[in-house]
Structures are given as C-alpha cells and as structure tokens.
C-alpha cells in the first residue's frame, strides 16, 4: 500500500515545539538535520519501502481557467495564512501502522541542540489503481 508523507512549510496543527527558522540554527545543527533526511530516504530504500521523495520551492501561485480565448487567471503569491506543502515522501509499506510509524520517525529529525523537531507530518493513503477483488 502506498502512502504519502507530506511535509508542510506551514499549516497543520499547532507546532508541538517552537523552533526558530533553520537559518538561525548553528551550521552543525543544519548539517545534522540534512544528514538525517538523507539517511531516512536511504533507510527506506534498504527496506524496500521507498518510492519517491521530492521537495517543493515555497513560491508558486493558484491558477484557473477563465473562459475561452482568455489567458488563465492566477492568484498568487500565496497568502501567509495558506497551508503550504514543502515536500513529500511516497512509501510503499505493509500497513497503515507502518506508515504512521515511519512518519513518527521522520518527525523526530534533529533540530537545535540535536533535539527532535516534533514536526507534524500529514499521512495520506493513495487510492489504488484497480478495484479490489470482491467477487
């Protein structure tokens, strides 16, 4: 079963810990955090559960159709209040419980002082491509 682990720049429940932005950590703390993220992906590859990981830039805009012959309308840049996705992991795992367990591990990425950042991650099951056999 495939699951999406979504990371957010902002949005989601109230942060469990109030860390300063990453550029205000020490260089060593930044290194440790980046290394943890790389190791996490490598570990998933080793267990055969890794599918994909991507990071998104914070910029972007909303776009919609505006009628025949007219250019699309854009609404952006994003408002400060908007829930903003930062990136994701796609994992292919045995169960929902395993997905939640992995999200918990990812949320323990180190921050200032090497302490876990307690980041909220959104876990979403993929809808499958083919219907389950029920006959």
């Amino acid at each position, binding site marked *: 079963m495939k699951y999406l682990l979504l990371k957010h720049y902002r949005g989601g429940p109230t942060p469990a810990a109030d860390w300063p*932005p990453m*550029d205000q950590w020490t260089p060593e703390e*930044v290194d440790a955090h*980046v290394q943890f993220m790389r190791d996490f992906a490598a570990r998933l590859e080793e267990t055969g559960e890794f599918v994909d990981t991507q990071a998104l830039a*914070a*910029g972007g805009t909303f776009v919609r159709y505006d009628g025949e012959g007219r250019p699309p309308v854009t609404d952006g840049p994003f408002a400060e209040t908007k829930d903003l996705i930062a990136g994701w992991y796609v994992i292919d795992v045995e169960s929902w419980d395993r997905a939640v367990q992995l999200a918990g591990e990812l949320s323990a990425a180190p921050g200032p002082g090497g302490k876990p950042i307690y980041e909220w991650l959104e876990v979403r099951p993929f809808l499958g491509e083919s219907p389950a056999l029920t006959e």
Partner: protein
Amino acid sequence: MNEPLLRELVPVVIGILVRRGADFASAEDAVQEALIRALETWPDDPPRDPKAWLVAAGWRKFLDAARAEASRRGRELTVRVEPPAGPAPATDDTLRLYFLCAHPALPSAAAAALTLRAVGGLTTRQIATAYLVPEATMAQRISRAKRRIAGLPLDQPGDLGTVLRVLYLVFNEGYSGDVDLAAEAIRLARQLAALTDEPEVAGLLALMLLHHARRASRTGPGGCLVPLGDQDRSRWDTGLITEGVAILQAALVRDRLGDYQAQAAIAALHADARTASETDWVQIVEWYDELLHLTGSPVVRLNRAVAVGEADGPQAGLTALADVPPDLPRYAAVAAYLHERAGHLEHAAELYAEASRAATSVPERDHLTREAARVRHLLRP
C-alpha cells in the same frame, strides 16, 4: 560485452540504413530495437563482426516494420528486400545526425533525448532513467520529436549553435542513477569535435572537460555542495585539465572567439590555480568582459560581479552588482557573498536566508541555509 563500442556503432548503422533507402524515423526505430536485442544477446553470444550484425539486425527490423505498415495500408512494400550495395558511409552521416536530432524546430528536451538515442546509442529506458521520467513518457517524447522532423532532408547544413546548446544541456544534467549524462555529453562533444573544424566545438569540449575534472571535489559527505573556493584541489583530475587546456589553446589561436571558448578560458584559469588564493581573478574579470561583449547576458554580469569582488575587493563587486537585474536566479546568493566579504554580516545573513528560499535545487538550498546559519553564528557565537 563492449557496450561503448556498441553505442558508437548506433549512429553509423542508422546512417547505413538511411543510405539503403530507409527514412530516418524508421531506421532509428529499427536500430534501437536491434540495440536492445544486442544488449540482451551479445553477453552470451558475441558476434564476430558487431557492425555487420547490427546492420543486418537493424535492416531486418526495418523490413519487418515496413512490411507490417505496408500490409496495414494494403500497399506493396516499396523498399527492396535485398539491400543495395550503396557507397561506403561517410563520417558525414554522423554529423548530419547531430544536426537533425538537435534541429532548431525541436524543443530542447526533445532534441536532447533524440540526440542521446540516435547519436549516443542509449536506450529509451536509459534516457528515461537519467531524466527521472517514466519510460513511456520518454518514448513518446522521442517519437513526437521524430514526427516533427519527418521529411526534413538529412543532407542540409545544420545549425551548429543548436547542437552545442543541446550538448551543453545534456552535460548540465549531470549524474543520476546509472547513466552518466555528463560523461555522455563529453563523448558526444569529442566525437563532434573530430567531425568538425569549429573552434566553438573545441571550446565547448574544453569547457566540459575542465568542469568534469572538478566533479569529485564538488560534493562533500552526504552529497552536500562544496563551493569552488573550498574544494580539495588535489582531487581535481589533472589528466582532464591538461587535455581541456590543450584543446582550448589550440582553439584560441584560431582567433575566432565565441562564448564557449571564453567560458572555457575562465574554467582553465580556475583549474590553473593550485590554491584558491592563487586564482588570477584579474584575468578572469577580463574574460568576463569578453564574454559580456559576446553575449550581453545578465547571468554573465552576475558572475562577473563575483570575479570583480575577488579582483578589486567586495565594494567594487557590489558596484558591479548594481548593474545586474535583482530578479535573476542566484542574485541574492551573490549579493550575500559580497556583503559578507564587505563585513555587512547582518545583511549577508538575511540575504543568504533569502537566497536559500529562492534556491532551485535541494543541495543548493541546504548549502545556502547553512551559509545563513554560519554567518548568523559569526554574529552571535
């Protein structure tokens, strides 16, 4: 199995099939199928004459496809089943393939993919892996490109500038998975340099070699980015540097300067410095002036500001930066660097953080975040 040899044969064999009367698109498909078959069977059953094997297999695949197409349309097969002897294929065939695959009518991503397949002899799967797209997507991109150029004659002079741009794009894709596109671009540029007598082709080849020579030192532990000034220069590949410099010098004496030669000259000056502090920044600024004269590009202006900052001090660099449009990618990163050197640490930290938010790749973002953290730490240790 000798895969490099096999891949070198691909454009040659396409050329032979076209001379025998196949159209380019069908010949290219047929040779791709023969190539995949060769990759499967040669390891256990190597042919005595690889080229003859590939020509025979490609021609058979072509005939099969032509027959199927003819019967689908209820027509007679118009291509002779027995191949005509034909003249010996000239090396010009391969050069024409470069021009056709990197035709100005094609979007650059399609031109790059088609070049890698028809000239580089890569399989669709390998190209898809290298560009991190599904194989079906890449197959579609290639077949649309071939439809776009269908009917274009193979014997017209091409646009060398487009070919060089496509090779440069392929080179910049670098390395992901098991296909090394940078090495592949170098191979294709090397082959192109042997087929033409243009100083800019030599310039591009020299530029690639000089950049490639530094590749091992460009990433640190865990894939983090190491900027030029901090690189371990003992890890630079001196063989590639020597070769790149020799090719560049031979091109420069022809006295037909172009932007690839100028960029290669800058790369050569960096390669020439045993330590970062020995870099001849004054000469590098002169080359940037030449480059600016040739291209008028704002990106060149931005890089020139860094060089001016090194040659004449950060204040001069900041003055040079004033002529650069601030919406350029990497503008904030350059501004941060110059302001830090000028001692404006608070401002530099803010600019590094801004630059990290504007970064276009993960390693670049992580590097700039770390730079912001480093400068903030200098302020509040």
